[in-house]
């Protein structure tokens, strides 16, 4: 645990991911009235984090797909975002959807910071400075 500090690495990656997504959402909102603009998003965190294969990357270990649940590691209902119908000016940004995504990002970032803080507390306790 004290050699590689995976929890710090993971919470760092999570905060970085939240920041990147926040920038993407800000871009969508800023372009909510630009003709011909299509909303963009980043890859989900789980995919983003596990895609990094390099040794020591802190990639999560997993049993083979379908080992525990027959659905191949997926929950039954895959989240599906409604297909955006473009406005008359060919802009396909839904402000409501962007607000929902913004709240998701805020919560993810807060979670990452909370995990980081709590782990920092753990290390402080181990050093006897509680």
């Amino acid at each position, binding site marked *: 645990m004290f050699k590689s500090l995976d929890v710090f690495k993971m919470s760092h990656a999570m*905060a*970085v991911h*939240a*920041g*990147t997504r*926040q*920038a993407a*959402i*800000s*871009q969508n*909102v*800023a*372009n*909510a*009235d*630009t*003709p*011909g*603009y299509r909303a963009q998003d980043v890859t989900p965190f789980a995919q983003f984090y596990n895609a990094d294969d390099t040794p020591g990357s802190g990639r999560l270990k997993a049993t083979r797909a379908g080992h525990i649940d027959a659905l191949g590691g997926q929950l039954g209902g895959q989240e599906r975002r409604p297909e955006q119908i473009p406005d008359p000016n060919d802009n396909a940004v839904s*402000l409501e959807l*962007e*607000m929902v995504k*913004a709240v998701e*990002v*805020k919560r993810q*970032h*807060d979670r990452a*910071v909370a995990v*980081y*803080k709590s782990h*920092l507390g753990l290390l402080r306790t181990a050093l006897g400075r509680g």
Partner: protein
Amino acid sequence: MNEFTKALTVSASGLKAQATRIRHLAENISNADTPGYRRKTVSFESEVGRDGRISEVQIGNLHLDQSPLNRVFDPSHPLADGSGHYESSNVNMMIEIADAREAQRSYEANLKMFDQARQMSSSLMELLRR
């Protein structure tokens, strides 16, 4: 430039674009009774960011609405022609007000994204405080 700076920059560009739009709308409304005034329309364009990823929004060229001017019957008006009509502006109050409301809504959305990015970055700063 880190992700929060990008998010703040793109939100700021959105705020600026919407503010310019509101300014032109105000100009149209205040000139609703000016004879011969053509309403101004602004267009938004998505600017390709320097690093090729975040695209800020900017105001495109200003256009004058070329739809026919309103003909008002008022024989006592100094600009009235032989038939007693003069050409007023082609501003439609309903359109301007609806457009202003949309601009306001987009402005608020941008402001919310700006505030959220600020909160997220200040929560990171909180980590340094002890």
